[in-house]
């Protein structure tokens, strides 16, 4: 079953074409990253899915059904900014959400605990710091333990510890089998958790699908030793070497086939080269993304 299917969604604000015929599908159980620079249409797209914006053309389904409030109640959504009644406490704001989603109020204590807000739950929302507001918004999405989450820049306004916590939380949610649709321009935020991505640029979908098929991110090996020039000469003789680059005092070797690092090490040692650095790495999503959006 597909959680979300978009078909030719277009949206225009005056002269700005915010989305241009965007179509893709979010499979159940995936962690789906919607990537793109600021202003690429990520929030507009999620706004249409959550019915706060109306698409000019195109349509979409949620859980293979025509979208309505019933489907939205089964999704925990954080869109753009935390939207709460300033004069009410965090707890009372979540009471309203529980009523809208028709979920048990007993769950409020659990989500406030996860968000680290239990101590301040009875203080008015307007007294919260930016990070606490964002935490309340995250608690709001988790209310009722929905199987699908839509998170738009979930770590906005959080301090480094908070960002790490959110990343951990998303990982944990993904492992528990939930479907997570996440928009972010912070790539390392999604890098570690995404199974699927859609890449948007200026409202156009560049690509979408499983992250390893749509983004070429081959492994490479980082090497260093006391005699870098000799190491370089030797590596160039390796039959599977594709590309070689010297960056930050280490050589990055890209191979055209699978290379066992221990065999590589042993081969180099046999040639009299004793490595002081050897690491298998994967090209970062950011690098792959930049390559894609710049072409």
């Amino acid at each position, binding site marked *: 079953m597909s959680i979300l299917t978009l078909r030719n969604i277009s949206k225009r604000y005056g002269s700005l074409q915010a989305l241009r015929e965007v179509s893709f599908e979010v499979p159940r159980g995936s962690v789906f990253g919607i990537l793109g620079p600021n202003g690429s249409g990520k929030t507009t797209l999620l*706004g249409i899915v*959550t*019915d*706060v*914006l*109306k698409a000019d053309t195109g349509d979409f389904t949620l859980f293979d059904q025509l979208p*309505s*409030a*019933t489907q*939205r*109640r089964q999704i925990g*959504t954080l*869109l753009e*900014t935390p*939207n*709460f*009644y*300033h*004069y*009410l*406490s965090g707890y*009372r704001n979540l*009471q*309203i*959400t529980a*009523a*809208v*989603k*028709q979920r048990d109020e007993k769950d409020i204590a659990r989500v406030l605990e996860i968000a680290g807000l239990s101590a301040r739950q009875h203080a008015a929302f307007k007294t919260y710091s930016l990070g606490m507001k964002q935490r309340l918004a995250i608690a*709001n999405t988790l209310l009722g333990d929905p199987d699908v989450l839509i998170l738009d820049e979930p770590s906005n306004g959080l301090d480094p510890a908070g960002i790490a916590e959110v990343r951990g939380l998303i990982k944990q949610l993904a492992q528990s089998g939930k479907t997570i649709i996440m928009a972010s321009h912070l790539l390392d935020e999604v890098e570690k958790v995404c199974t699927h991505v859609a890449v948007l640029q200026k409202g156009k979908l560049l690509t979408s699908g499983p992250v390893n098929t749509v983004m070429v991110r081959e492994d490479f090996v980082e090497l260093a030793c006391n005699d870098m020039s000799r190491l370089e000469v030797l590596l160039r003789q390796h039959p599977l070497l594709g590309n070689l680059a010297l960056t930050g005092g280490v050589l990055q070797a890209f191979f055209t086939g699978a290379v066992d690092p221990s065999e590589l090490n042993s081969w180099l040692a046999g040639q009299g080269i004793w490595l002081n650095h050897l690491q298998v790495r994967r090209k970062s999503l950011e690098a792959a993304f930049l390559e894609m959006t710049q072409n």
Partner: protein
Amino acid sequence: MLNIIRIEWLKVKNYRTFWILLILAVIVIPASNTIVADVVSRIPKQATDILGRNFYDFPVAWQTVANVNSFTSIIFGLLLVTLVTNEFTYKTHRQLVIDGWERLDLVLSKIFWVVALALLALVVSFITAIVFGMIYSTAPFSFEGVQFLFFYFLQVLVSLSIALMLGMFIKRSGLATVIYLGYAMIFEQLLTVGLKHSVGAIGGLLPLQAGDELLPFPVVDKVLPSSSDYSHGVYEITIILYIALFIGLTCRRMLKADY
């Protein structure tokens, strides 16, 4: 609908501004009648003899209370503008839809307030008329003329429908408040006067004015023949049509717009 009402209750239960405005709107009803009763009691006896009636005598007490209250019902409108524009100020109109309200539920939740506040105004006016009648009336209690409270109820409903529409269209609390006050207190009066002069009786068919036509100050309206040019039914239907129009426009807007 019950769930929507429960959610509205959660929003206002701990909202001080709401309670202050609500108490103010309610207290003003007996308070303004106290002032009128006091002023009326100082009219020399000869004058009231000419008029033939005390203003809080039954059956005119109903009409007096309805007329006096029609000047202060604007406070209910201010309360409604606040409740409506709050959703836009806090962007909770977005969140409610995101979390699982239909867009129409947003409109229904505020129509609930239109009806609830109008009913509250009606009930408080009803009690006020009875109490003031009991205190001041020299005639026995009577329900004759109680229909004036229904006219008042209609006027509060249309006034609140205007507040609803302005709040939903303008979204910004300060601007919506000023435009609502400006329209209710000045602009419509000007239009009425202008239309009555230039066109005629049709000037009495503006939304709030139609209510005023139904609610002339008692006793005096018998001495100075009524300015009403249409029958009561025409004004009543006009008001109901306005209510339908304003709520219809609000629904259309909220169903189509980007939030």
